[in-house]
């Protein structure tokens, strides 16, 4: 607490002079008669404050107890439940999982969220500015409906790998170019379409194991971040 006198401005010397010299020479010169606020001559003022007030100043008086009772308990429980509930809703956006040190095979089968950073819920796009819609690449789905590949050729790198196999070389090239054409058409036609739901079934075609096989337990408890409130009480 800064003592209030310290905030008041010092006098200009001319005014001071007209009052016949300062009273109480030990103190600073002030714009008004301090006796008006009750500081008499020679009164010892508290020492100036040289540092910020302590973080946890001692309490002079005990605080009033919090209201208890049915209503208080219920609202408290409600508050904590709400906190937990909101963290589970799709509106709670978690930052992207940071890239790990080594690429793992199971990465391919991790269900770590919606594809392409799109959102988990369906807003009414008619009510929102068009620029907010996130386009979803539909590469995966298109391919599986057109052809029956054993390994879906995701990128040109994969394509290069299969060049070794003479039987599939020509076929792959055909398929890739035809897919690329399809893609372009799709994107032009369906600009306003909402995102497709990520279909687990397609992934499952490629492996003999159920998806929980690839669960490496990382997600367990990992969602808690800083707040663990929903876990308790």
């Amino acid at each position, binding site marked *: *607490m800064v*003592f*209030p006198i310290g905030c008041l401005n010092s006098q200009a010397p001319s005014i001071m002079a007209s009052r016949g010299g300062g009273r109480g020479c030990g103190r600073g010169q*002030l714009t*008004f*008669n301090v006796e*008006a*606020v*009750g*500081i008499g001559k020679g009164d010892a003022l508290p020492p100036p404050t040289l540092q910020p007030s302590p973080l946890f100043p001692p309490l*002079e*008086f005990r*605080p009033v107890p*919090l*209201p208890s009772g049915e*209503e*208080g308990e*219920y*609202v*408290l429980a*409600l*508050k*904590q439940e*709400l*906190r937990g509930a*909101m963290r589970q*809703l799709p*509106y*709670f*956006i978690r*930052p992207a999982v940071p890239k790990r040190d080594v690429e793992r095979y199971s990465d391919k089968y991790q269900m770590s969220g919606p594809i*392409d*950073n799109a*959102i988990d819920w369906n*807003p*009414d796009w*008619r*009510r*929102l*500015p*068009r*620029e*907010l*819609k*996130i386009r979803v690449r539909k590469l995966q789905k298109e391919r599986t409906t057109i052809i029956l590949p054993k390994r879906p050729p995701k990128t040109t790198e994969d394509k290069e790998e299969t060049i070794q196999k003479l039987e599939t070389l020509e076929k792959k090239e055909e398929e890739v170019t035809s897919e690329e054409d399809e893609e372009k058409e799709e994107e032009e036609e369906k600009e306003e379409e909402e995102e497709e*739901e990520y279909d*687990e*079934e397609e992934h499952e075609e490629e492996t003999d194991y*159920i*998806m*929980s096989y690839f669960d490496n337990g990382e997600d367990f*408890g990992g969602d*808690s971040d*800083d*707040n*663990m*409130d929903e*876990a*308790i*009480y």
Partner: protein
Amino acid sequence: MTQAEIKLCSLLLQEHFGEIVEKIGVHLIRTGSQPLRVIAHDTGTSLDQVKKALCVLIQHNLVIYQVHKRGVVEYEAQCNRVLRMLRYPRYIYTAKTLYSDTGELIVEELLLNGKMTMSAVVKKVADRLTETMEDGKTMDYAEVSNTFVRLVDTHFVQRCPLVPATENSDTGPPPPAPTLVINEKDMYLVPKLSLIGKGKRRRSSDEDATGEPKAKRPKQSTDNKEPIPDDGIYWQANLDRFHQHFRDQAIVSAVANRMDQIFRSLPVGYNISKQVLDQYLTLLADDPLEFVGKSGDSGGGMYVINLHKALGSLATATLESVVQERFGSRCARIFRLVLQKKHLEQKQVEDFAMIPAKEAKDMLYKMLSENFISLQEIPKTPDHAPSRTFYLYTVNILSAARMLLHRCYKSVANLIERRQFETKENKRLLEKSQRVEAIIASMQATGAEEAQLQEIEEMITAPERQQLETLKRNVNKLDACEIQVDETIFLLESYIESTMKRQ
């Protein structure tokens, strides 16, 4: 927006929506209206993340958008609305007291989701209520619908602005963003829906015992295929109406307390004769609280509730209470004195309060430095010479209320931070306790023996249990404090708003 308010908004957004939404929201609160790309650039966030965050914020009525010239859409945050998130439990509880569990869940769903169609709300609430009912019983949609309509009729729930119907959508490209409009008379218009159905229980057979993922079952897309009868008609909770209710409650309880003080000796009966009622009202009107005023004598006298005065009294009472609890009862006496007499000189304070000069000075300066009391200069001469000027102590209720409100925001922010800190400190232990509970639950489901359960429970040692107990107590206390401070915030905000309206 003050730093304290921004800080509090930041904590609330982060707790409810995560860091990304918090970053975007706080940025908009600080900078004002901005377009999408500028937000992304200034916050260093990817465009996709900004889009996601804006969708969430708009859905929850925390951000609005406007189309400016050249088709640029700008987004603006509603800081005050963000602060309302602190009050969600109170809104929901109020709905419960007025419209029981059904009303409670309706308001809860609307607050959790920002806005919803009536059919979506009814279905969701019916499902939730069915979960809590005995086996075999279900909640009928009609009952939920009825409660919904009642909430709309009493204005606790209102329509969201609509996308205007486009007459000729072929003329030129569609606008970058719709301009939402709402007609006053449509705000509480319920569409004619015939919602027939019953709530569905989540069947326990859904969770396959073998642990197969749900994806193996054909996706339930039937809900998406059915045409929604009230498509495009969204509803939201009407917070202002709840505030009206809180205000009325506060006034009623203040008056009730007052009546108790005065009439403690009288028998409490409900057969109050006209004469006695007259007496009560006269007393109320004469009461220094000035809640009730008498305006005219026509028809035996018309009594009017003076809302602004009522709010002023409540705010003043809050200030007095804070002074008392912070500085002691003698300070409170001085404070009340200055309030009553409006302006007092140093000497007068000492005399009226009957407190020795030195202590009186000390107390006055303490209150002065914390801005509960202020100094008013009254010059005696036109040249405002300091030696010929009165310096009077006075209480400026509006500025004191603002100061206290600011402190309240800081307090709540501190409470939230402390709560988060406590939880973080014990994160490892909490995770462990969660795991143990999960193990016990699954063992109970598969019918484990008592001894086995005991063994698992002992994985948490006694001191650890103690620690968990302490944590629980502290978190509860901090949460309860937040709720309590929010009540004070509400009173002060109401008073300040009412005062500003009159200016």
